[in-house]
């Protein structure tokens, strides 16, 4: 889920006191747990997001939307950290109100994406092999919202600090992404990624993520404010999460084309 994906500038002090000795964890375990706390907490979830995009000159644009998330259960109904569905319903600004963006995330093939534009009364499938394009004009990419597959990168634990595992991730297929590598600071206790830095091949850092606020909600550590900065344009985007709830009882049917035109109001209000 978006609000888990993003790493948290935690109230580290409190967390550090609870730190467990996990220095001996294997890298695969670290990234899997980080992936889980970022995207797979609970069976489903919802959150309202306020997004503020601020450009280099301090001009702002805002968007407000509600995200619903549902995880496909395993054959026996258990949690498998596998395919997921996302439903993103916009209500502000007024002229994009009721616009819906829907994703079926697959681990073994390209995602399916749909877009509903109410003013044109149009449902479109979006064919995108490339998930690293801007999410509705913000500095976040689609992939930041739905999560990047673990198998897309090679992971390497480059440093272990008092509070963080610092993991360097190198893409398996360089041609699909604009970065040469990225570094993630994964908090040792919560396994939330708190900071991510993206690098070009020549070593310049051009993009940066940080979790600005973390709360514990329904027992799940949750990033409630996150920020993505584009260091090349000087633009940055802040997402604030409110009304975050887990296990709200969504079912998979909501995440189908039928519901694009007829939003499931009871989950969105």
């Amino acid at each position: 889920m978006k609000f888990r994906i993003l790493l948290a500038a935690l109230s580290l002090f409190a967390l550090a006191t609870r730190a467990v000795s996990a220095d001996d964890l294997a890298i695969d375990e670290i990234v899997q747990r980080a992936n889980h706390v970022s995207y797979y907490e609970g069976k489903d979830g919802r959150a309202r997001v306020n997004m503020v995009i601020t450009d280099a000159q301090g001009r702002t644009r805002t968007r407000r939307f509600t995200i619903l998330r549902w995880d496909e259960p395993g054959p026996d109904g258990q949690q498998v950290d596998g395919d997921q569905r996302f439903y993103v319903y916009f209500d502000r600004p007024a002229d994009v109100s009721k616009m819906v963006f829907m994703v079926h995330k697959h681990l073994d093939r390209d995602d399916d994406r749909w877009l509903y534009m109410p003013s044109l009364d149009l449902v479109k499938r979006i064919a995108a092999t490339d998930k690293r394009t801007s999410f509705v004009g913000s500095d976040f990419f689609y992939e930041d919202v739905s999560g990047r597959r673990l198998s897309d990168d090679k992971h390497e634990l480059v440093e272990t600090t008092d509070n963080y595992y610092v993991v360097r991730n190198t893409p398996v297929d360089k041609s699909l992404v604009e970065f040469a590598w990225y570094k993630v600071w994964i908090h040792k206790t919560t396994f939330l990624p708190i900071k991510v830095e993206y690098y070009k091949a020549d070593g310049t850092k051009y993009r940066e993520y940080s979790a600005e606020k973390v709360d514990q909600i329904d027992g799940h550590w949750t990033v409630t404010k996150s920020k993505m900065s584009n260091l090349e344009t000087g633009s940055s985007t802040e997402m604030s999460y409110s009304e975050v709830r887990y296990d709200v009882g969504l079912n998979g049917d909501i995440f189908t084309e039928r519901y694009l035109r007829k939003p499931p109001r009871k989950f969105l209000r």
Partner: protein
Amino acid sequence: MHHAHKPGRVVSACSNHPRFVTWVMIAVTVVLAVLAGVPTLFPDAAPMLNGLKVDTDPENMLAEDEPVRVFHEQAKKRFGLHDIIVLGVVNEKNPDGVFNVDTLGDVYELTKYAETLRDKAIGVDDPEAGVVRVDVISPSTVDFIESAGVGTVRFDWLMPEPPKSRKEALAVRDRARRIPFLNGTMIADQTDEALCLYIPLTDKHLAHRVAVRLQEEIAKLKRTGSGEEYHITGLPVAEDTFGVEMFRQMAISAPLAMLVIFLLMWYFFKKITLILPPMIVAVVTAVITMSLLVISGQTVHIMSSMIPIFLMPIAVLDAIHIISDFFDRYGETRDRRSTIIAVMHELFGPMLYTSLTTTAGFASLALTPIPPVQVFGIFVAIGVMIAWVLTITFIPAAIMFIPESRLADIAGAHGKVEAEAGSPMARVLTLAGRLTYARAGVILLLTVIAMGVSAYGIGLIRINDNPTKWFEPNHPIRVADRVLNKHFGGTYMAYLELDAPEIDTDVHAFAEKVKQDLKSGMGDVDAAGVADRLDAEIDRLASTAGSPWDLLASAQSFVGDRLDTCPDEEYDAWDAAATALGEARSRFEVFKQPEVLRWMRRMQDHLETVRGDRGEQIVGKSNSLADIVMTVHRDLLGGTDDQYRIPDTPAAVAQCLIQFQSSHRYTDLDHFVLRDQSDPKVHFRRSCLWVQLTSGDNRDMEAVTRSLDRYVAEDPPPGGLTYRWFGLTYINVVWQDKMVSGMLQAFLGSFLVVLLMMIVLYRSVLWGILSMIPLTVTVAWIYGLIGIIGKDYDMPVAVLSSLSLGLSVDYAIHFLSRSRVMRTRFGSWRDTVGPVFGEPARAITRNAIVVGLGFLPLLAAPLVPYQTVGVLIAAILLTAGASTLVLLPALMRYLERWLFSQKIEGAISCRWATCASAAVVLLGVIAVNVHQFLGEPMIVWVSLGLMPVAVVVCYVVSRRRSCADAGNAQGGVS
């Protein structure tokens, strides 16, 4: 001359202490050179001093606070626009043009390389400086959108990696063709033979560095046989390269001018000993003046870089007269001291006046509104006076260094050649002298005809400039310009900002409108009195809200809260209210309104029909927000051409734009429309149109602006939009306008100043006017010719008019002064002509040749404006010399009776016609010149009003008794 005793004292003092004079001159020169040189070479050694500052930016032709520049900077910043280097790739050999595997592979590599050109890679120590990576336009850096089968749309990089097959290469072309933003901008629209990379820079002054790096890389990349050619152009490159070439010009032309002057003087005077002092005066003058320029903190600009080459010929002028005269007389006395004193006695007046008139001519450039031209004029004026001081002090001193024995030898040689009057030049002049008397009528008739032709030619003058054409036709920048503009919609960018008018801030009126909107928006979905509650809330808000948008924002959040919390049965009503409020708000967002976008596209269509005077299309292409919306709309709705249109509601426009931003280049929209939701006064209320011109000619840009003005009058933009141009191509037009009117004023100003000086010098209106005739005829003739041969009236041509005036009046002064003296001696003009065409005419001819040819080395300069200056000033000086020698004697033959009828010495106040005209001209000078500095338009009217008063006062004053007495004493003033 009146004050002959004063120069006499100076000259004798200088000739008594030649060493002292020389040391003082050397000391002053060295001190100034050090003051200028040290901070230049060692900037840290003397931080309080100004070092050499170079400015190659034609934008600085306008003052920095000039409104058009201020707006240009603001608008560029607002829309995140940068100055652009255009890298063109042309392949005319491959049947697929540039769309083949090799060429696109090279383009891919080159783009990657261009993106690294920042910071130390281009030799600057600033990680922020260089290529603006995110805004590079190249096949591998842009997105495309396409309809991919039923119900599906695809977004992707246009060329994520180099194509591996012919099919893939052609696919790049086919996709780009479908994107209007790219077609005609990034790829040629008529052929497959060309594509362009647009490489934006953080600062246009980096253009040359970046261009050089790119050229090096291209040389490495080029695969033999693939047939690609690369061209680099764009105004920033042209302008920046110009600065580099400027220094080459200074290094070549100035020394070459020295050499030419040296050779000519050597030819005329035979002995090097003799011509060394004038050469020293020339060099010292140039060094002192340039040092002063640097010390005073002025920049070396396109104009001021020409100061040395202007000063050197002018500086030797007076010295030539002295030396010429010295050796004519030395033979008689054989005493260098008494000879030089006698020579200076005779020449002091004419030299002073010629220097003053030249100074006035250049100083008048201070009246132009163009800072670099002002600096140029003022410093040449200072240099001319420095040269004059050096001439009357150092030349006599220098002559005292030459032993009498050497002088005797030289005088002999000189006497033989010149005194016998047997040289070809002397023979031609003698013949010319006779003709001016015998055929005076024919000469005047021919002059009248020539003036008629000139008037016709001046009527044909075409005002135009184009910084790209400052390079010679075979310069790579010119070649690139021709080739690329043949294939593309144009590489010259101008921008048009469209602004929505201020929002009416009457909150109550707005509240009423909102209530109306709600009523019609909610219609029959109202439930449980939602509309009434909302109306009440809006009335409440209207009494507290500070502005319409505050009211709306409060109302929206009120409705938003209800939507979150209201019972289900009210939901639809609140929802409809939210929609209605959203629509009310979107009315502020002018550039989401379909009718506004449709108007923009219509206006663009019109711009693309503007033709130049050769019938060619000037605007090859334009890009706007409308094009973006139409493209996205088309591909969202199946990709067929009939969907290439603006959708019908603002919300549909907004949703198309959200899609446009869901790309890799999500900030691109900022280049076309201003977005800031925190400021409703600007949010979607300012838009920027990119207009690509195929030519950087100012007249073409002007044709576009005029055509837009006419179009807007016929098809006014919806919602009272206003528009304003910016961009380098447009700025050039503005400074050209200023230059043309400014130069006319400067010319008029210096004409009046010089006329006033002539009237005072000759104590006669008639003589004053006579002395202005040769240069007037010359300037008219030269400008008439410029009109007839179709040479554009550009920056150098404009500048020349007023500065040539001060120079070419010299010949008339020398001619008339000498003629007046000789006529008194010989009694009639008929008998005077012969002697006047002896030594005086020879001195004038030599001068015209030395100075005129002295400017010709500018022809060796690699840049066209310098060449223009060289050719024109040589032509003006030679023509002025010739017309002085032909026209003045012819006129004097007819005017003899009036010119010599009276003895014209004595107080000017006693000669009422002279006094009155001098006063009128003086008031004219004040009207034209002085008000420029004081900025008080009343001065003009006061001056004009005082003219008749001055005439009356002069008349009254001239009738006073003391005048009558003085007149009688002098032999009668009639």
